[in-house]
């Protein structure tokens, strides 16, 4: 599968507000302008994102599979050695579905940071209390966005309301609290409460399995960029699109391990696929929607500042303000802080040359991250177009027009004036290199 072919000049120019972006997408490119500076930023930030992500996916699976419904999960971020050493299924020599060239085990930069932090080697509890650690709260916020929005397509989410799921969850809950009459009594009194917690654990697993794929993807893109085999933004998008198709059918499931026994709350046999049950809901929930961030910016629902429908929420990374204080979107401060620890040297040098240098590096990298996420979204557009519509070099003008309608419909989400969506979208901003 490829998206690199040049478009044929058989269509009139687009009249869309973002016509230049439409033409770029029709040429197999991204919403982000294809410049070496943009490429350097997005590839560098993907590397800085991949390192903490290597922890996120491991700990998400640890929480979903091991911590599960622990009523006082104080140590849920204290990942077990088993999960820290858990081999990635898609990278490493012993991967059962090796697609990417990276190592199976946790990235060395991550292990070094876990030992040392920003300060110095200390007991893990002290690092945790000092907040000198990977901010799992960010990963949990993403997971909760997926859980809270629900109903974003696919079969995974409806399955959580099915009788089969409830039966499987009931088995797991009873086994987990075996010998604990207090919790079992509470379960009897408030079964829906426990069931909802179980659904949340399922989303932990869902997101963990999603990011297990993405971490090695980003590592490899960075390696290839350093080698010179990824030389344009379009190359990077193509790599993502190819990766999406290579991995699209991998299973999404939720297993819980209780006293050595595996309880299949969502069995692999249900056939939930990575692309439709994890990737697309994740993009919808985290890139577009999330929720009004509980920062210093206040939203007045009575003044129509908050949409009536959750599908119209627009607080995700594609709309988020880069400022960590008083902003909308995913808790950006925590992620930016995580990425700051792992920035490649060339990106640090780049940031030092702009704005306030080291003083506002968190802001600058947050903007780079936003650019990179527009690229990932572009890859999703291209993947959906390839899956549902026509090749970019299709000789039939009607097919090309259908492709255009698809791209324009996607971009319309950044043009809507309701609730200030048009102003909030950053697509306009990322077209300029001066947006930092």
């Amino acid at each position, binding site marked *: 599968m490829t998206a690199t072919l040049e478009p044929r000049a058989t269509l009139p120019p687009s009249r869309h507000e973002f016509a230049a972006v439409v033409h770029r997408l029709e040429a197999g490119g991204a919403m982000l302008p294809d410049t070496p500076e943009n490429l350097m930023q997005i590839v560098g930030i993907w590397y800085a994102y991949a390192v903490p992500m290597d922890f996120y996916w491991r700990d998400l699976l640890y929480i979903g599979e091991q911590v599960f419904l622990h009523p006082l999960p104080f140590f849920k971020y204290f990942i077990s050695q088993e999960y820290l050493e858990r081999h990635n299924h898609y990278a490493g020599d012993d991967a059962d579905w090796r697609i990417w060239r990276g190592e199976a085990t946790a990235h060395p930069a991550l292990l070094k940071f876990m030992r040392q932090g920003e300060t110095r080697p200390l007991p893990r509890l002290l690092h945790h209390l000092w907040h000198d650690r990977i901010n799992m709260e960010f990963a949990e916020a993403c997971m909760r966005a997926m859980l809270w929005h629900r109903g974003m397509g696919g079969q995974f989410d409806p399955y959580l309301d099915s009788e089969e799921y409830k039966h499987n969850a009931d088995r797991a809950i009873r086994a987990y609290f075996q010998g604990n009459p207090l919790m079992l009594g509470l379960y009897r009194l408030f079964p829906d409460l426990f069931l909802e917690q179980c659904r949340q654990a399922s989303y932990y697993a869902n997101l963990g399995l999603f990011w297990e794929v993405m971490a090695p993807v980003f590592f490899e893109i960075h390696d290839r960029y350093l080698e010179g085999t990824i030389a344009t933004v379009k190359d990077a998008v193509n790599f993502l699109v190819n990766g999406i198709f290579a991995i699209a059918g991998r299973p999404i499931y939720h297993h819980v391990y209780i006293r050595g026994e595996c309880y299949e709350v969502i069995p692999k046999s249900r056939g939930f696929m990575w692309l439709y049950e994890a990737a697309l809901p994740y993009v919808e929930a985290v890139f577009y929607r999330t929720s009004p961030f509980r920062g210093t910016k206040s939203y007045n629902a009575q003044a129509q500042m908050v949409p009536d429908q959750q599908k119209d929420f627009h607080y995700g990374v594609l709309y988020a303000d880069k400022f960590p*204080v008083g902003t909308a979107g995913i808790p950006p401060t925590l992620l930016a802080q995580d990425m700051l620890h792992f920035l490649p040297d060339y990106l640090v040098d780049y940031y030092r040359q702009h704005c306030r240098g080291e003083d506002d590096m968190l802001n600058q990298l947050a903007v780079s991250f936003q650019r990179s996420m527009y690229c990932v979204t572009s890859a999703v557009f291209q993947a959906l177009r390839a899956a549902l519509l026509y090749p970019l070099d299709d000789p039939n003008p009607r097919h090309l027009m259908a492709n255009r309608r698809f791209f324009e419909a996607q971009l319309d989400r950044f043009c809507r004036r309701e609730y200030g969506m048009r102003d909030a979208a950053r697509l306009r901003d990322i077209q300029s290199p001066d947006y930092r």
Partner: protein
Amino acid sequence: MLSVLIAGPMLAALAVLLVREPRQVRALALLLSALMLAWVGVILGRFDVAQAGMQMSEFWPWLPNLGLNYRLGCDGLSVSLLALNALMTWVVIYSTPIDVERPRLYYSLILLVSGGLAGAFTAQNILLFVLFYELELIPVYFLIGIWGGARREYAALKFLIYTAISGLLILVGCLALGWLSGSPNFDYPTVQATVNRLGVGFQVTLLLVWLLGFGIKTPLVPLHTWLPDAYVEAAPPVAILLGGILAKLGTYGLVRFGLQLFPLAWAQLSPALALWGTVGVLFGALAAIAQKDIKRMVAYSSIGHMGYVMLGCAVGTPLALVGAIAQMVSHGIILAILFHLVGVIERKVGTRELDVLNGLMNPLRGLPTISSLLVLGGMASAGIPGMAGFVAEFLVFQGSYPIFPVLTLLCVLGTGLTAVYFVILLNRTCFGKLDSRTAYYPRVFFAEKAPALVLAGLIVFLGLQPMWLVKWSETTAQALAVTELAQAPWTQGHFAGLPSVHSPLQP
């Protein structure tokens, strides 16, 4: 000793004209202003706070035929303002951008004004005072007219006209006093001894002339219309000079040449003066609330705060006078920090518009330290306890309430209104969401923060240790107190029971 404070800056003004390198000009001006500040420290060290009369007096007969003598001296009122003058001069020079145009002329004029002010605060000959009073007119005109904003020429001309009229009124009052009283010269002690030869009607008339003259300078409502233009159009350091110390020349004149020289007439006019001050407080606060330009807002706040000084002076009791003198000093410091911070904001953000500014407290891309200091300055100006502004206003109110309770309560309301406009200013400027599309402001360097940090430290220190603010003027205030007020009908039965000057703050 006092002559050093006059001659020093004036010689320094000449010295900086001889230096070619702009950076050396600034360094020299800064060094010399620091030396003057240190010298004031020496004077404060030698000043006897228990002595009521003039200290460190100097005398040199200059033009005896005209009654003009070079007679200097300082009491608690003078020494407080001398210290403020030296500090403000240093702050003004330090807060001036390094790349200021025509630096030699600029720093020279600043130092010239500083020397003139020191002369005015120490002059013990009324004609000599008028000379020093007039000396600052032209330098300030140039400071506004050359280094000001877009409407600088208009503002400078307006300042020149108003201040020239003010100077003329003061000169007329001075000459009339000398000639009518038959005083052999214009030396202050001599004039004071002969002033009682004049009838009360003459005294009231002369006092009114000086009230107009000094009222323009202070300024008092409705003589204030030059102030918003001058303060707003002047470069921030010059605005500090204008509001921080130059305006005090007006209030100093009211006390020295109104209250002290004409106590009987002052007692007659006391209720009207208190009402005048109260109107100023309320007008200044309400006008500030209506502003959309933060610099103009601070400028109007200055008018309001001068009203407190007027109220304290009008009451004329020792405690109220201590409060009024403390208010002169604390207002100078607070206004200086506010104008400096507004200047930094304008330089970095490019606007002073309240409707445009937002979210400057943002830790990464905003101006967090400047915003924090602005919050502190606003709190001090609103009279929040623990800061210098509270001490001064509290003393004024405590001194004035027994005599003019209604007017005092209206002024207390004025402090509430001050809090209102500063909350508006701070809420819109510092808080809220920074506009990410425009917020590429340059960073603020430590050198730009330093003057504000010094002033903020002083505001808090004087708020927590108020004796350092008031001890210099207590004895002087006791001597200046208008005892004639005791006979005034509106104070009957109250004057004897007034709180002593020493009661509230003495350990």
